[in-house]
């Protein structure tokens, strides 16, 4: 067997000694060693695997003035000396692992070799989870150096819990690295998540543009990407089970998303919530000035005693009232005010709640359906995520890109809260859910008000792993995200970084060379921190197997907004291909848009066999307007004169 050729030699001086965690070695001028390269030191009785963190080069030139003298002061001559000066390539490496691990000693002087596959596995301690019967490795990319290309795996126990969990990715915007990395990693998780760890699904929030709008469409991959997939043992296939959720626009019939191409309509459904869905999260939309203690007490009263259950109060109605929608709630408030004005003029208190408080709550709650128009409906017919029926390896993309920030917060808060509730009860349908949130610095900023969403993200990052609720988050500036949120991410990825960001204190542990490499990292390369890796390492990953947002928009351009009747017809035709659009248009002619929306929502919720018949019934019969009654003139009781004026 050929002995591997040494590429360097450990050197240790009093000024630059070897320590148990760091060593220095020199190489020939031409060597495959670079920043991030993994190397192995062989010494009698000890093998050390390290990663190069810094590099130095210098010659035997004592001072620059001697170079000037040697070149007679002419820079052009400086490069033409007959002999090149002796020059050193000196590298600093951080220890990844020492074998044996005890006693932990300074790195010995010895020959340095480029790491091979086995060294990479050992150095990154991947043998802890890649050997045995129940392996938990998730391919994350390849480590490439010196002609070697070794797959790098993340431990599922530390990526999706329960040991550690969560992933955070930082990188400058515009390179698509963050989104691509998450898409690739999700694909890798779906393909390799070990069966003994149960099922997994993903819920992604599309917060900008068409980034995540084409996860079910194949990407155009090159040979190099396909080779990388093969090297990692993965298939380059788009996600098989993807469902898109988008609220309506203000018109209530056109979806507020860029994924409106008719070819993609089959798995794009509206996201519509009613009173019951949003009341628990009213805190997201209402600030402390809106909801003081009195108002909060009345909202609690509504939640516990009124909404969603029969409410018996003879002062308001002989029959039990059922408040299921914002429209019902408005009717409920109207009855209270009528009672207070007509029957109880002596008091301004109804059931211990002051009239002013009730008016305030009515105004604030009523305003929700206006502020979140398109998402929140007045009529109570909701269209929601499949709570309790989330399928294994399914992806659910909630498109909130077109919503106001505060409404995005509402969507985010409710969905994560529902996930948590179901995972606590173990009735979500899957054991693990990955929640992907981009622009984390917007939702959990270091500075800024203490919001519901911020608190919830913190709770998710600190306790989610016990439930199987895993946060995959991304942002441009990690330093601007609440430290406890990113700090709880067991795995951190770093794409190309802004120099200002790298110079912030959070990156102080990185060497200047590593920072320089991060600042110029090409697309498709990441620096990875993972609990098993004692040092961050650089990996290369292939393009994700799904269509990029920009390419998707070219292949599937968004449809123009349809007229109201066309939009209604299209939605019904999607539910029943046998329906002719003109039938629908005839049905809704002369009907109010509010009635049509209500009927449409009922159809969506019920999903009847005969869609058109159900829609017709939900619309109800046409009621002819009453002819105005003839009003007779009343003669004055005591005419004063004939003067008409």
């Amino acid at each position, binding site marked *: 067997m050929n002995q591997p050729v040494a590429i360097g030699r450990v050197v240790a001086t009093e000024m630059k000694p070897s320590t148990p965690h760091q060593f220095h070695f020199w190489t020939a001028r031409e060597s495959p060693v670079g920043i991030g390269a993994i190397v192995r030191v062989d010494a009698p009785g000890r093998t050390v695997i390290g990663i190069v963190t810094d590099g130095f080069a210098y010659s035997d030139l004592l001072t620059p003035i001697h170079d000037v003298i040697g070149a007679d002061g002419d820079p052009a001559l400086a490069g033409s000396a007959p002999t*090149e000066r002796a020059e050193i390539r000196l590298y600093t490496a951080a220890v990844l692992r020492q074998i044996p691990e005890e006693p932990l000693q300074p790195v010995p002087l010895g020959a340095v070799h480029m790491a091979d596959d086995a060294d990479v596995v050992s150095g990154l301690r991947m043998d802890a989870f890649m050997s045995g019967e129940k392996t938990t490795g998730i391919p994350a990319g390849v480590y490439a150096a010196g002609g070697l290309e070794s797959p790098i795996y993340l431990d599922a126990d530390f990526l999706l819990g329960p040991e550690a969990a969560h992933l955070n990715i930082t990188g400058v915007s515009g390179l698509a690295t963050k989104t691509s990395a998450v898409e690739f990693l999700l694909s890798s998780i779906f393909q390799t998540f070990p069966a003994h760890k149960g099922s997994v699904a993903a819920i992604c929030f599309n917060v900008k543009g068409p980034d995540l709008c084409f996860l079910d469409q194949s990407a155009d991959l090159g040979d190099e990407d396909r080779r990388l997939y093969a090297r990692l043992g993965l298939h380059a296939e788009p996600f098989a089970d993807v469902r898109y959720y988008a609220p309506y626009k203000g018109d209530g019939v056109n979806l507020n998303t860029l994924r409106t191409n008719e070819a993609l309509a089959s798995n794009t459904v509206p996201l519509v919530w009613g009173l019951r869905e949003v009341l628990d999260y009213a805190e997201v939309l209402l600030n402390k000035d809106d909801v003081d203690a009195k108002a909060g007490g009345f909202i609690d009263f509504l939640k516990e005693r009124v909404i969603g259950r029969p409410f018996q109060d003879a002062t308001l109605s002989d029959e039990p009232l059922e408040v299921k929608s914002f429209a019902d709630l408005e009717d409920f408030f109207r009855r209270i005010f009528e009672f207070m004005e007509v029957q109880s003029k002596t008091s301004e208190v109804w059931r211990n709640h002051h009239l002013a408080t009730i008016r305030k709550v009515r105004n604030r709650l009523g305003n929700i359906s206006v502020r979140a128009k398109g998402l929140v409906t007045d009529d109570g017919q909701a269209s929601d995520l499949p709570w309790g029926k989330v399928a294994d390896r399914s992806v659910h993309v909630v498109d909130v890109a077109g919503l106001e920030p505060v409404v995005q917060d509402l969507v985010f808060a409710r969905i994560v809260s529902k996930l948590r509730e179901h995972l606590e009860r173990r009735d979500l349908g899957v054991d693990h859910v990955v929640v992907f949130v981009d622009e984390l610095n917007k939702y959990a900023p270091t500075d800024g008000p203490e919001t519901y969403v911020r608190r919830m993200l913190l709770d998710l990052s600190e306790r989610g792993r016990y439930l199987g609720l895993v946060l995959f988050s991304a942002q441009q500036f990690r330093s601007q995200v609440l430290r406890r949120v990113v700090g709880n991410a067991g795995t951190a990825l770093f794409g190309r970084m802004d120099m200002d960001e790298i110079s912030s204190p959070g990156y102080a542990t990185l060497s200047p060379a590593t920072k320089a490499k991060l600042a110029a990292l090409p697309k498709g390369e990441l620096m990875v921190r993972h609990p098993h890796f004692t040092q961050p390492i650089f990996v290369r990953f292939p393009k994700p197997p799904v269509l990029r947002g920009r390419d998707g928009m070219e292949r599937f351009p968004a449809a123009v907004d349809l007229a109201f009747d066309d939009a209604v017809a299209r939605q019904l035709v999607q539910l029943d291909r046998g329906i002719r659009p003109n039938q629908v248009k005839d049905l809704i002619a002369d009907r109010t848009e509010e009635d049509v929306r209500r009927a449409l929502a009922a159809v969506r919720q019920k999903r009847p066999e005969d869609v058109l018949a159900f829609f017709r019934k939900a619309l109800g019969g046409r009621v002819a307007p009453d002819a105005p009654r003839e009003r007779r003139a009343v003669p004055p009781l005591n005419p004063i004169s004939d003067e008409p004026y």
Partner: protein
Amino acid sequence: MTTRNWTRLRRAVAARGFTPATWIPAASEGRAEEATIRLAHLLEDLPIAGHPVGPPEAWPEAVGFLDGTQRYEVMAYAGASPVVVAEIAAAVLERRDRHLHVAQVLRRRLVIARPEVLEQLEDAIVGHEAVALPEGGPVHPVLDFQLARREVDSARGRLEVETGNRFRAASDAWLIVDGSLAESPQWALDGRMLGVSKSHATLPFSGTQLEEYLRLPAGSRSPVFQPAGREVAPVYSWALRLWPWEGKDLMHGLIRVEAAATVETLAQADQVSRWLLAERAPVSTPDPRWDRLLYGIRAVEEFLRASGER
């Protein structure tokens, strides 16, 4: 077991009843030379005061640099007689494509003492060459040490010759030797060998001629002359000023070149001088002899020092 480390060697010698000692004489790495004037015979009709050789020119082909090093110290005393241990080494670094590569390297380890002492040390100095001091006289520690040093100088010279010969057997490239070609008659006949001497302990002229010789301007050379006292290995020689000396020392930047005593040498003295002028860069700092020390020669010394062992 081969005793490689001088400390271990010292212990082994002490174990045989000798008194261990550590004395490293000043300038143990260099050879001592005696200052003298030996009048030379001029071979060119040029002014001794200097002849400009023209602008520097890079050596057009591969060239080797040969040098040797020596280190020695007193390791023990047998009674009053010193036991000296030495390491001598010689190497050729060959320059190809502006990079220096090790072409030849030889090392020897010596133990120098009186013959009766060496007999007692025989099994303790395995791996070392035993060199006996001349017998007969009474023990005199200073004289014995001077004799030992001469043995080291001599052994080093032989090792350099051996190294140079090995290089020449493998290559016909130019070879620049640090010092004189007189070490070997074979070298003195080699048309592609040059000796470059930094030392001017032996001067070829006297009086006004010497003054002119030593005041050569930068970039100029003296006429070619034949040094005296080289009957065994006659060579041609000339002085070349690499750097201006004004404001510094009279010898600053002054080297003496030796070449084969042939007509070709006379014909190409200017050309060789231009090549040597180009060797001023890179400057051999931080060596204090940088003004006369060619970078290739310095690289050989650095290599031998760095790769040697005690």
